[in-house]
């Protein structure tokens, strides 16, 4: 069985490994770097920079513990560290692929016919034949149609990850996860940050309580957050930029050193030969069924290309299942218990649906809310900012969503995800013993609160 995978991001390489584990002869075609956006210019480099930024941000906390601290950041060295982490991880993945006897072809691939992918490599064009094909070409930043976005001071996330110096003033267009992470990052590194979001709120997919709390945190750090704001025009001004915007409360003109455009990403559906086989595209993404198969039998699509939830772990899990299905299994993809995270300080994470969505779609619900400031661990660690919120149906107590803002949220969410994945009720989480003192105690407390019997909350 010849399994060919187009694209070597987290989706593609997971599919390749699982395919090899199940006995396929696997070839993976990658035009740039193994690891895709996530390892090279996404998840990993941002998290490395955020680790340093968090230490800088924590100086005030350290002082509260009697530590007299002085820090000075060498931005070049930090960028060097980031480079090393990325190189080590991508090298690991390459070794892993080799150890699984997966062939890697460096070049741009395009579907030629129902058995062949044509690849343009440095040594010329190669035809690679397949029995099954998995498309995993990912996505790229979306640029809105605003004049002046071609100026050199305007960057996308990849550009912001290769700044030579920390911009004195940074304006971020967009208010999604990536935009907020960069805002928190550069504020901590010393930039004066402004955010501009077209919608009435940042983090539009999160629970309203998370939206409000994160907006408040950004503002407390001196970040200007403008919502309902539209960027009209970008012009050169000195060695920086002059922005023209409209909206309530936003000045008409803003001066900035750099503009980071983080307004979303679009699937790479173009120029890969989808038309040749009539592979269906809907809303600019490849259409797939529950088994990750496109409308053409034997051809699967995964990851950002399918625009389901544009996350690395969605891509990887789709990749595993697509490979399993290509090898004859019939595993369905379920998106309900996939968590999402925000690697700010404090962190945020969620799984399932928001309170607002639950009220709309599920009628009567129960909500349990537990603030970090009531946790012993939060006080001991000076991490009192945050909460855990849990949402369930009123009738059966089935858990529908978990929303966390606060330290370690991106790891705490795993318990919530497993609870939803295993179709737990509030009782299961409420009766589970949580260690003391931990942040995860808040999960048990939130579940108890939803049931009306919290331990560490004042009676109403």
């Amino acid at each position, binding site marked *: 069985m010849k399994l060919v995978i187009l694209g070597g991001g987290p989706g593609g390489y997971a599919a390749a490994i699982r395919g090899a584990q199940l006995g396929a002869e696997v070839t993976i075609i990658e035009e740039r770097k193994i690891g895709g956006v996530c390892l090279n210019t996404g998840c990993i480099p941002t998290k490395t920079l955020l680790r340093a930024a968090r230490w800088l941000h924590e100086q005030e906390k350290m002082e509260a513990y009697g530590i007299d601290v002085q820090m000075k950041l060498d931005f070049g060295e930090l960028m060097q560290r980031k480079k090393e982490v990325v190189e080590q991880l991508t090298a690991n993945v390459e070794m892993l692929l080799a150890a699984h006897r997966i062939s890697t072809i460096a070049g741009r691939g395009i579907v030629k016919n129902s058995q062949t992918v044509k690849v343009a490599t440095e040594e010329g064009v190669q035809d690679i034949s397949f029995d099954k094909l998995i498309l995993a070409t990912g996505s790229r930043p979306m640029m809105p149609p605003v004049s002046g976005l071609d100026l050199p001071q305007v960057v996308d996330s990849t550009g912001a990850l290769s700044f030579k110096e920390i911009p004195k003033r940074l304006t971020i267009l967009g208010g999604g996860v990536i935009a907020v992470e960069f805002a928190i990052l550069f504020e901590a590194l010393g930039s004066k940050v402004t955010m501009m979001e077209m919608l009435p709120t940042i983090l539009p997919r999160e629970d309203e309580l998370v939206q409000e709390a994160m907006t408040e945190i950004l503002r407390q750090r001196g970040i200007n957050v403008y919502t309902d704001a539209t960027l009209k025009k970008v012009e050169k001004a000195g060695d920086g930029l002059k922005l023209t915007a409209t909206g309530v409360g936003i000045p008409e003109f803003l001066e900035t050193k750099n503009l980071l455009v983080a307004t979303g990403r679009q699937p790479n559906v173009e120029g890969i030969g989808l038309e040749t086989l009539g592979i269906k595209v809907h809303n600019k993404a490849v259409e797939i069924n529950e088994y990750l198969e496109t409308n053409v039998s034997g051809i699967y699509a995964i990851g950002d290309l399918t625009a389901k939830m544009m996350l690395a772990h969605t891509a990887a899990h789709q990749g595993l299942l697509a490979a399993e299905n290509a090898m004859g299994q019939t595993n369905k993809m379920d998106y309900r218990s996939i968590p999402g995270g925000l690697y700010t300080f404090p962190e945020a994470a969620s799984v399932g649906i928001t309170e607002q969505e639950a009220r709309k779609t599920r009628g009567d619900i129960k909500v349990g809310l537990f603030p970090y400031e009531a946790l012993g661990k939060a006080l001991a660690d000076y991490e009192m900012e945050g909460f855990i919120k849990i949402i369930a149906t009123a009738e059966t*107590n089935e858990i529908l969503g978990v929303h966390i803002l606060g330290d370690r949220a991106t790891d705490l969410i795993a318990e919530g995800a497993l609870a939803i994945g295993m179709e737990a009720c509030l009782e299961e989480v409420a*009766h589970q013993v949580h260690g003391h003192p931990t942040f995860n105690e808040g999960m048990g407390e939130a579940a108890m609160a939803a049931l009306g019997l919290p331990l560490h909350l004042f009676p109403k």
Partner: protein
Amino acid sequence: RSDDKIRVSPVAKKLAEEKGIPLENIEGTGPKGRITKEDVENYQLPVSDEVQEQD
């Protein structure tokens, strides 16, 4: 009860399958009637007069 989704723990489910006990027959004692491993282990085969009734 049969059209309601039966709440059962993964371990209990495997154990019941192994022992050939239909889940419908087991009384769940966990939260919201969830069938636990202990429920399967404590399950008693129906006594003989129930079998006679079917005749």
